[in-house]
């Protein structure tokens, strides 16, 4: 009897977050080499659901036993997942939750193992709010506007700002990228000279925002926060150019998913018998976090 | 030629303005069954007038009547619908399509949009047969034909049954005597059948041979319109350019200097086979032959534009020392060898660029210092050349595309004068060049020869070769079959040599 074969399908592996996720999974597999084998894949463009479906289908053709997937789109992936389940593949959902309505329509039960992006963004927003007064003005730099995570994070930021009576002057997309984040940030700074803070949907855009703040000569006057806790953000947290970010423990996310899948495989639990949701941690990271 | 009293085509006060006025107040009548010669200097407006008649150019002023009805075609298609057709001066075939498709483009036989391939082939074969091209496979892509054959296809395309008026704009510029003869036969047949023809050419002896009437354009105006009978050649020239030219009277063989270019056993596939020849300082060597006999390819092999399969080419300096070998045009030009190619549009000119740019490309070092161009020096050099060759243009900044065909050829020539070539390879150098300009070019060639340079000239115009050359080599079926010394040749002996290698067979081989 061969050990079970697990496929890990992520979004863009050119994104540090998913790369860390992949590395965590590979390390875990190495440590448990006898228990399972792993095929990890990502897509080129984070939003390309069709490309991800192609990968899912190839994984089914590879006769994997379990599929751990971070869907590029919470709805568009459902039919492909249904097809996989029908072929007897056990599916676990990580990172980005599949749309409950779509799952229900297909009569599917897919466990979600992952963080709550909206809650995480609220944590970051709350930390920022502590440095602001009611009536202060801030801007949000969103990721690719059409993605679920971008929307959730923006909502979380807005929740926090509303609670603190801080005005959000605008939400603009920085497309998850450092360069776009930079130009959007500098436009916002010009249009709203009294801006007090910029909330970026990920750390890459936060890096861009920091550069924009510096170029506008407002270092220290405009606070920046991000999300994801990538390595390049650490020096910024240290010297205060970035106030806070959130850590979703990328390295552990996939591992949690894989463990859930392995447990079910070992116990021969059917897809329908799997738990509905396993929440993973999101923590606030600031200069003072260890 | 019994001309019916009412003209089929009548023009009144036709004028055309571009930046300048190129046609003005042209009035002309054409009767059924008549062949009208239209001649004039380069840039006189012959092609423009022809294009107006067949709907390609809209006149600025004036009216036309066709068969008594007002006639103002807005497109070539409209003109063709009324039986007015034209063989263009510049080639207009589509290289990726087959001969048959080119022949019938615009009215491909089809059923509901789907081609009827059998019928297409049949129609094409019939049309080719009219002008004696039974040896071309209609399903062959045009890109495989030499330029002379392409010209024949172009002519065949316009030989349709419903034609009332046919304009031929320098159809023989690329043709050799055999094809020319076939064409003239066809023209006579059409005229007999009541078609009215306009024949544009610079070859005055041709005009005298086949035309009933002659019209001369000068600077866009009609300066003469009279029956051909009784007009002398000198008379025509005088009318055309307002001065007489020396018609290359019998000159003795030029004194020849040392050997400059030695070709031994040069060959490529079946197109050029084992050609050996010598070219000396101060000599003009002509190359005659039928369409597709391999003359163009031979020049390209010598020049390095195509790679030879076998054989050698050696160059010697004036002092008789061997010069370095070359294997590309770039290296050839470095050795002061130049090529005037037969297809100036696609292989010669940078059409949208000004005359200045076109002239100096052959030697930019001469007008630059440390890689930087010297605008004043460049303009000065080009101005002088433009004047010397009498290029008809606004100034040296005019785009070459706006020049008439003959003047474009002069620009190509200017390029090699600028390079100061020691050996010049000329492929149909006077194609489409008027008699005045031709005299200018001949004079320049003469000067080059006298200066000890060596010239190798391909031409389909035997008269030109016989006038200009010291020796004439004749190619047939890819071989250099015979070389005549000055005084040894007659038109008949040259032609006989050209036909020697069972030419029908050759065409089949090279086109298969």
């Amino acid at each position, binding site marked *: 009897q061969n050990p079970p074969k697990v496929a890990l399908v992520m979004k863009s592996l050119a994104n540090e977050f998913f790369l860390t996720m992949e590395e965590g999974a590979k390390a875990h597999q190495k440590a448990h080499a006898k228990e399972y084998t792993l095929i990890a894949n990502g897509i080129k463009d984070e939003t390309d659901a069709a490309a991800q479906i192609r990968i899912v289908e190839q994984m089914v053709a590879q*006769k994997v036993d379990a599929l751990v997937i971070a869907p590029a*789109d919470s709805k568009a992936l459902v039919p*492909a997942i249904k097809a996989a389940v029908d072929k007897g593949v056990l599916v676990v959902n990580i990172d980005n939750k599949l749309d409950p309505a779509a799952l229900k329509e297909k009569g599917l039960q897919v466990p979600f193992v992952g963080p709550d992006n909206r809650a995480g963004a609220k944590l970051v927003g709350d930390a920022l709010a502590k440095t602001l007064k009611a009536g202060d003005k801030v801007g949000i730099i969103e990721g690719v506007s059409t993605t679920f995570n971008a929307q959730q994070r923006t909502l979380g930021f807005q929740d926090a700002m509303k609670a603190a009576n801080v005005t959000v002057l605008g939400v603009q997309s920085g497309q998850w990228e450092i360069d776009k984040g930079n130009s959007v940030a500098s436009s916002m700074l010009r249009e709203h000279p009294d801006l007090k803070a910029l909330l970026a949907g990920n750390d890459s855009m936060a890096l861009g925002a920091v550069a924009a703040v510096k170029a506008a000569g407002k270092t220290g006057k405009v606070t920046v926060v991000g999300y994801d806790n990538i390595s390049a953000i650490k020096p910024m947290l240290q010297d205060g150019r970035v106030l806070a970010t959130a850590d979703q423990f990328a390295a552990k996310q996939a591992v949690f998913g894989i463990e859930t899948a392995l447990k079910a495989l070992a116990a021969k639990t059917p897809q329908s018998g799997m738990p509905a949701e396993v929440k993973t941690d999101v923590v606030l990271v600031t200069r003072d976090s260890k | 030629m019994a001309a019916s009293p009412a003209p089929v085509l009548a023009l009144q006060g036709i004028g055309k303005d571009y930046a300048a006025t190129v046609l003005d107040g042209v009035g002309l009548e054409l009767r059924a069954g008549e062949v009208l010669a239209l001649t004039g200097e380069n840039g006189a407006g012959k092609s423009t007038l022809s294009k107006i008649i067949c709907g390609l150019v809209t006149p600025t002023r004036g009216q036309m009547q066709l068969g008594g009805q007002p006639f103002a075609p807005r497109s070539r298609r409209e003109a063709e619908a009324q039986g007015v057709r034209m063989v263009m001066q510049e080639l207009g075939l589509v290289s990726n399509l087959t001969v048959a498709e080119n022949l019938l483009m615009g*009215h491909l036989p089809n059923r509901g949009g789907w081609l009827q391939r059998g019928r297409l082939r049949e129609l094409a074969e019939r049309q080719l047969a009219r002008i004696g091209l039974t040896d071309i496979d209609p399903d062959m892509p045009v890109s495989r034909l030499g330029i002379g054959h392409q010209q024949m296809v172009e002519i065949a395309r316009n030989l349709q049954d419903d034609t009332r008026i046919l304009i031929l704009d320098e159809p023989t510029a690329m043709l050799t005597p055999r094809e020319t003869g076939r064409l003239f036969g066809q023209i006579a047949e059409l005229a007999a059948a009541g078609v009215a023809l306009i024949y544009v050419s610079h070859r005055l002896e041709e005009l005298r041979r086949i035309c009933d009437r002659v019209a001369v354009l000068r600077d866009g105006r009609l300066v003469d319109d009279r029956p051909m009978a009784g007009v002398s050649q000198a008379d025509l020239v005088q009318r055309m350019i307002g001065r007489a030219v020396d018609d290359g009277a019998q000159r003795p063989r030029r004194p020849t200097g040392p050997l400059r270019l030695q070709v031994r056993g040069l060959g490529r596939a079946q197109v050029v086979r084992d050609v050996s020849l010598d070219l000396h300082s101060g000599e003009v060597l002509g190359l005659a032959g039928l369409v597709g006999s391999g003359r163009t390819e031979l020049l390209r092999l010598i020049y390095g534009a195509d790679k030879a399969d076998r054989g050698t080419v050696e160059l010697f300096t004036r002092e008789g020392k061997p010069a370095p070998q070359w294997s590309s045009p770039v290296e050839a030009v470095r050795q002061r060898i130049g090529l005037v190619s037969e297809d100036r549009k696609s292989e010669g000119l940078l059409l949208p660029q000004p005359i200045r740019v076109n002239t100096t490309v052959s030697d930019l070092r001469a007008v630059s210092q440390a890689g930087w161009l010297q605008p004043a020096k460049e303009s000065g050099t080009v101005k002088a050349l433009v004047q010397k060759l009498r290029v008809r243009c606004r100034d040296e900044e005019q785009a070459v595309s706006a020049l008439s065909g003959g003047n474009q050829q002069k620009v190509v020539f200017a390029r090699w004068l600028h390079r100061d070539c020691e050996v010049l390879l000329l492929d149909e150098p006077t194609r489409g060049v008027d008699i005045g300009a031709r005299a200018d070019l001949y004079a320049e060639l003469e000067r080059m020869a006298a200066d000890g340079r060596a010239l190798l000239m391909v031409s389909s115009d035997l008269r030109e070769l016989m006038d200009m050359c010291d020796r004439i080599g004749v190619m047939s079926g890819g071989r250099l079959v015979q070389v005549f010394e000055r005084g040894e040749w007659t038109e008949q002996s040259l032609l006989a040599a050209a036909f020697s290698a069972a030419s029908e067979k050759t065409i089949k081989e090279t086109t298969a």
Partner: protein
Amino acid sequence: MSAALPARNGINAQLGTYLGLGVVLVGMIALFSSLSQYFFTTDTFVAIVNEIPALAVMAVGMTFVLMIAGIDLSVGSVLALSAALSAMAILQWGWSTPAAALVGLASGTLCGLLLGSVSVAWRLPSFIVSLGMLEVVRGGAYLVTGSRTQYVGDRIAGLAAPWIGGVSVSFVLAVVLVIVGQLVLTRTVFGRSVVGIGTNEEAMRLAGVDPRPVRIIVFALTGLLAGLAGLMQAARLEAADPNAGQGMELRVIAAVVIGGTSLMGGRGSVINTFIGVLIIAVLEAGLAQVGASEPSKRIITGCVIVVAVIVDTLRQRRADRG
């Protein structure tokens, strides 16, 4: 010699045309089969076959566009818009599926028509007009969907449903379109006009063929096919994703060019385009199955594109000479 020029020696020469690319394709399949025991299975090929219809259908259109020396960068956006409109027609306006599909196709055709007309009317290069369209149409797709993926469900899954041996309707349709496309290119007056215009537009004009309607039709057709690709994609996703098809234009063009169609116009073959599509699809599937890392995927993909074109070019040159 491209297949647009009728082959002189019939079937044999025709087959020769596909040889260069065929070798690349077979080589890739052999390689991946040796790397992964499950690659050479029916499952894999059925999966590949069901992945390619959208790409293949767009590539058919793009072949015609490249043949007239044009380019259409907007196809990916058009795919998204047409899927989006169809989805909204079902979800918001309560239309029937066939009616909604028609809306999708019509919108694609209109986009192509607009692109073609603008570029013909002002004689602008289609590159830049379609670059503008890429942005405009993508914006349209965002507007229509409110920037959210619209889940439609089973009702639009028909095209992607497995049919004979697991092969989808989409694939059969794509193959039919490839064959029809090739026939249109080589056997119709329209197809010959396309070849002629791509080779020498001025000569065609002089021969009495107006290039403008032909150009416009080619772009409209490509728009229609991109719209169809949008429906095919939506059927697979059972949803309309406003981000669908981003960057797809370059994949499509890569497939067409790998298939030997010249970017300079006048030379190309729809069948070869299809082989180009297969090469890209097999490559992607194979790399996913062996679980190649992201950088190596990129590097291998890039190399395969260039190598495939080199192989095909060398074969073509040899054929032209012989």
